[in-house]
């Protein structure tokens, strides 16, 4: 085989030759930076779109930031979402810290406030709130927080700990900018005084320009308000009546009016109306006594910004005004054009202390929500991960989880299942068991244990059998205090109707989902409809398209879903965003010149390091003798220059550094400053500016050792800093300046399987202008859709089928090969060769860059329950078919019995097929509709009516049922088994799980990828799923495929493995060690070849190589040895 990996020759001369890279134009807005928002943003960024990712919170990550552990690994793994190819465009560190990608612009504390225009060209207005701290200047030292006198409950720890008024919203987030909570801040100014980088500015001086008009008929109110507000530096004028106020507004301009509602003459509401008519920009806050609260709420509807209650102490109106001042004068608005908008605004948790509060939440401190429990077991939580009771700090020995709190509850207006709580509770119970060395008892009280996802059932079984988690199916009646010590008594009624009582140390409420605050406003602004439960409504057969074209939704904003489903949905949303932008001409239509940076070729020069030492706002300078340190570094080998720079983290400091670099001949730069994460983006920019490959620039942290509290003396600190810098220099010296390898991509796709998933994937790819070959072994396209005639929601699968087949067969970019089988495949991402056998026996080879496996599955066969012995015993498919073609007439039956989980959820088929309960409900409701007197009796273990399917379960139950035997017809829900997986897995070199479904790279974070890059899965081949869910996964797999297809050449990362062939003895140990199938033995060349695109740079190959023939760039042996030497220099 020919060697097809080429290297860019630096400096890049491709543009001179007239070669261009296709670059997407167009941009997209993602609202909400939780897990789904991040996934959508990364997807689009990888496709080359410019993405603006906003979140109203001051931190990234959404709910996930509070969850340290996810099932099934019971740990994290979020970093696996980072790009696998073109890795250097994104940050290469823990995603919980933050996300950075060249094409993603992140705006925090930002809300979408207006949206105009049309699909493909929306004009959006974003409003970013100032949090008093300049993110450019804040170095995250935390001095401000230390001196802040205010303490309030910390939202990050779900109120279980206290924080200051100036605080870090998430302890591990980057940017780690402190933020001010205006509602609790007393504006004492202590933090402003102590801040070493001058990042905090309450803008007190500018307050005198903020003009406030106080309108109240009571002198005492006017006077006290004036006094308080003037004390805080504002300019205040007063009016004693509505008429006077309107006169004053006509003469002078004001920013803010504080307006009393009840006044003689013209009342507040009237003044508000007239004032808003004349001065729409004026902000008005109503002042009201209890009696007129309703009027105040009405007033807000006609334009008032907020209201405050009278009588008040200075700590109520002043912070409100301070925040308004901040909002009005110091809020940045940004207008931009975007092609599409993805809403991933997440969800809010149900508040169990609302309404009835039968579980005593908020009454006993030992009743907590599942999120609070999550914080209790977290290392960054209140007790550093020890499971102690919030009430008395006692070690917890007996814990109860109560399911369906605020879900599946008609009284709470929640006729839906929140889908994730069952698994969430099992995970928490397992962690509690593990943390306590199995000393804690864990009991889960539930109605149905909904383990409907891939491998969920086995997880549950493991919890029960191996860890002793107790599952109690019952209805919990009440939770009440058991004694003085804070223990709790749970009263519950079991299945036989018997009442039990049990005492627990701690009760965890598995609280359900609610639409997030502001959903209605957001929906109205974007012109999208909501569903009956207040979540975003979706189009038929879609998990991401809203009622308006160009506005997409991902994650829990359309109903709670777990990480894996969120990630699939997010990719489906980004695919539709991309399709839209593409169809509006924003796709590959315009070719723009590559803007690859020109880097100096320094490969032949000896290493010359420019060392920049930051004073960290004087902290370092005070602690150690910087001059002596500078001198000692100057005498270090390979150091060309040493410069001390004031606060490199600030713009001034950065400018100073660039200025100092200007005349330097150095070919390496080491910045010794604070948090290296903060510099990721800046380092790239610096590299491009001075023409030095960014991998030759590094940042080391010399600031953390100098923290107060570590109490190091000057000598100790000098030694720590010297060692850190010396290690940095050693590593940089050995850094390989060679360019990042790239590889050619065959821009064609192969889709195997012509069911709805395969057809959707093919269409999604073809729609972007790439050729697709769709291979189907049957005579017709359509797969399982041929057996489905209706869905629970009332959509028509047959129309869907007809439409999809027509589109696929008509599409100029899609080649359909029916009656065709794959007989073999080889190659790597970007360059696969697959042989297929056509109906006539001829063999054809196809070249393609990506492969999508959508080989589906079918209804399982059974021999249980006398199936096959009587015509009255059917499967759900047979029932559906019979009802459709008229061979089964429900009006002729009196009783129909249905048995669920036939051969499922027990070994060897120990998984839930997810769709059978829905089928059962669907067919039951259909038959009841035809024959209301029919009795349908369903024998089930757990009714898996997750999400909004629950409402149909309620409907079916209300339709009535009675246990009557014998039945006219017995229907078996036999579940789903995968299609032909073994042969395919072998042909494509991919894995499958013990049930025969394809094994994804990572169940949560990479649900449609195989470990082998370039091959993706979708539909039932992944795991049983509904039509809509299959379509979503197909769209997600197409999206993953497009990020590769979209490039003629694709770059790997700077850290990749290579082979020194002269040392290699071809033992092939490295091939076995490589987890990514990135290595193979090339027979023709007789050597080990690395596929740089597939290589992720883990270095496993280098560690197993006996001859050091396999090396990892950036971590060559010599380099690591020198770092070790530097670390231990001066010992002994």
């Amino acid at each position, binding site marked *: 085989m020919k060697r097809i990996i080429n290297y860019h020759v630096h400096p890049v001369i491709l543009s001179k030759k007239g070669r261009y890279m296709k670059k997407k134009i167009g941009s997209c807005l993602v609202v909400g930076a939780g897990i789904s928002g991040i996934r959508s943003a990364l997807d689009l960024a990888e496709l080359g779109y410019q993405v603006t990712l906003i979140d109203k919170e001051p931190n990234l990550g959404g709910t996930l930031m509070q969850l*340290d552990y996810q099932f099934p*690994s019971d*740990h*994290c*793994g979020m*970093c*696996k979402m980072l790009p696998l190819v073109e890795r250097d465009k994104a940050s290469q*560190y*823990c995603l*919980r*810290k933050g996300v950075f990608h060249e094409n993603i612009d992140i705006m925090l504390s930002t809300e979408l406030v207006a949206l105009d225009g049309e699909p493909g060209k929306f004009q959006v207005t974003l409003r970013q709130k100032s949090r008093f701290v300049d993110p450019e200047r804040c170095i*995250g030292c*935390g001095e401000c927080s230390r001196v802040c006198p205010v303490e309030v409950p910390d939202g990050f720890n779900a109120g279980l700990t206290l924080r200051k008024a100036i605080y870090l919203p998430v*302890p*591990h987030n980057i940017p*780690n900018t402190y933020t001010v909570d205006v509602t609790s801040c007393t504006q004492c100014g202590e933090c402003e005084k102590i801040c070493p980088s001058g990042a905090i500015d309450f803008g007190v001086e500018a307050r005198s320009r903020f003009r406030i008009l106080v309108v109240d008929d009571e002198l005492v109110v006017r006077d006290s308000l004036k006094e308080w507000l003037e004390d805080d530096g504002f300019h205040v004028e007063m009016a004693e009546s509505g008429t006077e106020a309107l006169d004053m507004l006509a003469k002078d301009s004001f920013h803010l009016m504080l307006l009393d509602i009840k006044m003689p003459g013209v009342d507040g509401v009237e003044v508000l109306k007239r004032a808003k008519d004349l001065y729409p920009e004026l902000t008005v806050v109503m002042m009201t006594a209890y009696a007129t609260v309703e009027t105040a709420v009405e007033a807000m509807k006609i334009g008032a910004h907020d209201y405050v209650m009278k009588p008040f102490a200075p700590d109520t109106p002043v912070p409100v005004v301070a925040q308004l001042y901040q909002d009005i004068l110091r809020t940045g608005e940004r207008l931009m054009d975007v092609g599409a908008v993805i809403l991933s605004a997440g969800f809010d948790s149900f508040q169990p202390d609302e309404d009835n509060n039968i579980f005593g939440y908020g009454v006993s401190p030992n009743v907590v929500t599942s999120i609070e429990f999550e914080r209790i077991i*977290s*290392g*960054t939580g209140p007790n*550093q*991960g020890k499971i102690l009771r919030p009430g008395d700090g006692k070690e917890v020995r007996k814990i109860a989880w109560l399911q369906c709190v605020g879900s599946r509850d008609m009284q709470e207006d929640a006729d839906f299942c929140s889908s994730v709580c069952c698994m969430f509770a099992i995970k928490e119970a397992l962690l509690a068991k593990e943390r306590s060395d199995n000393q804690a008892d864990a009991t889960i009280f539930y109605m149905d244990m909904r383990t409907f996802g891939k491998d969920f059932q086995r997880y549950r079984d493991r919890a029960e059998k191996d860890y002793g988690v107790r599952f109690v199916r019952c209805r919990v009646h009440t939770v009440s205090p058991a004694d003085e010590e804070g223990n709790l008594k749970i009263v519950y009624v079991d299945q036989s109707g018997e009442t039990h009582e049990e005492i627990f140390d701690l009760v965890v409420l598995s609280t359900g989902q609610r639409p997030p605050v502001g959903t209605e406003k957001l929906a109205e602004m974007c012109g999208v409809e909501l569903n009956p439960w207040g979540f975003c409504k979706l189009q038929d057969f879609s998990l991401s398209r809203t009622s308006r074209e160009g506005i997409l939704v991902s994650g829990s904003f359309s109903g709670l879903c777990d990480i894996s489903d969120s990630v699939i949905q997010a990719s489906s949303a980004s695919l539709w965003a991309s399709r839209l932008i593409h169809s509006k001409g924003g796709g590959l239509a315009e070719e723009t010149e590559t803007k690859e940076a020109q880097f100096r070729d320094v490969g032949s020069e000896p290493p010359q390091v420019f060392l920049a030492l930051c004073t960290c706002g004087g902290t370092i300078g005070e602690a150690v003798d910087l001059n002596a340190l500078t001198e000692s570094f100057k005498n270090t080998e390979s150091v060309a220059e040493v410069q001390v720079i004031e606060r490199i983290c600030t713009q001034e400091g950065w400018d100073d550094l660039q200025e100092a670099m200007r005349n330097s001949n150095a070919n390496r730069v080491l910045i010794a400053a604070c*948090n290296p*994460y903060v510099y990721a983006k800046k380092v790239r920019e610096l590299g491009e500016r001075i023409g030095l490959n960014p991998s030759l620039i590094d940042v080391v*942290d010399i600031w*953390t*050792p100098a*923290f*107060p*509290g*570590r109490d*190091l003396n000057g000598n*100790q600190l000098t030694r*720590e800093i010297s*060692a850190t810098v010396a*290690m940095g220099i050693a590593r940089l010296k050995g850094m390989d300046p060679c360019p990042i390898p790239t590889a050619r991509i065959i821009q064609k796709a192969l889709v195997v399987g012509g069911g709805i998933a395969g057809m959707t994937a093919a269409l999604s790819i073809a729609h972007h202008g790439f050729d697709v070959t769709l291979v189907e072994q049957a005579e017709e396209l359509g797969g399982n859709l041929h057996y489905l005639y209706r869905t629970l929601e009332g959509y028509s699968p047959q129309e869907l089928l007809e439409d999809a087949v027509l589109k696929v067969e008509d599409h100029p970019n899609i080649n359909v090969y029916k009656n065709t089988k794959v007989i073999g495949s080889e190659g790597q991402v970007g360059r696969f060769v697959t042989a297929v056998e056509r109906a006539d026996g001829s063999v054809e080879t196809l070249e393609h860059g990506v492969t999508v496996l959508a080989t589906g599955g079918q209804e399982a066969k059974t021999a249980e329950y006398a199936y096959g012995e009587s015509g009255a015993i059917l499967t759900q498919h047979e029932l559906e078919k019979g009802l459709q073609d008229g061979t089964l007439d429900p009006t002729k039956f009196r009783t129909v019995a249905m048995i669920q989980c036939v051969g499922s959820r027990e070994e060897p088929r120990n998984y839930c097929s997810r769709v059978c309960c829905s089928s059962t409900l669907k067919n039951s409701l259909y038959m009841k509709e035809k024959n209301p007197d029919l009795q349908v009796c369903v024998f089930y273990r757990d009714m898996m009516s997750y999400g909004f399917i629950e409402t149909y379960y309620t409907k079916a139950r209300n339709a009535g049922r009675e246990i009557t035997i014998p039945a006219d017809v017995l229907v078996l829900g036999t579940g789903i088994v995968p299609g032909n997986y073994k042969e395919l897995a072998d042909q494509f070199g991919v894995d499958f799980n013990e049930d025969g479904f394809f094994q994804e*790279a990572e169940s949560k974070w990479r649900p449609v990828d195989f*470990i082998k890059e370039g091959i993706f899965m979708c539909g039932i081949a992944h795991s049983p799923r509904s039509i809509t869910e299959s379509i979503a996964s197909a769209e997600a797999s197409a999206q993953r495929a497009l990020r590769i297809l979209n490039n003629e050449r694709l770059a790997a990362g700077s850290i990749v493995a290579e082979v020194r062939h002269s040392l290699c003895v071809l033992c092939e140990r490295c091939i076995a*060690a490589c*987890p*990514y199938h990135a290595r193979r033995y090339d027979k023709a060349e007789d050597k080990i070849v690395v596929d740089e695109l597939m290589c*992720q*740079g*883990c*270095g*496993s190959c*280098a*560690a*197993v190589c006996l001859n050091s023939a396999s090396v*990892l760039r950036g*971590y060559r*042996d010599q380099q*690591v*040895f020198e*770092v*070790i*030497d530097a*670390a*231990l220099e001066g*010992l*002994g």
Partner: protein
Amino acid sequence: MSDKEPIIVAFVCNWCTFTAADLAGTSRLVYPQNVRLIRMMCTGMVDPKYVIKALLQGADAVLISGCHPGDCHYINGNYKARRRVKLLKEILPRFGFDERRLKLTWIGASEGNEFAEIIKEMVAEVKTLGPSPVKEQMVL
């Protein structure tokens, strides 16, 4: 020599433990000085010769720390490290080092406190073992 604080060379993975060490720093958790963090992409790439080199160079102890089992960014690198450390502990005495001078732990990204604890524990243990035999020899 005994007045000196022990030096620990820590090979930490880029994804989990490096983040945890950083969190320990930014959360201002107090842990002993003299930990030399060497950031590797994965614990699976920590070649045994790096460990031996560090010990021969005078480190009092070596820590290898990465993602929890099942959580490795590179799928299974931490398992490779686990196997390797088990073997290393068997051969370290032949180089004259107590096997307790090498430690392998899993510290997740949000477990800054765990990082500080491990360092404290290691320092305490190494103090009972006394300084590295290499240092003794060098003094002699």
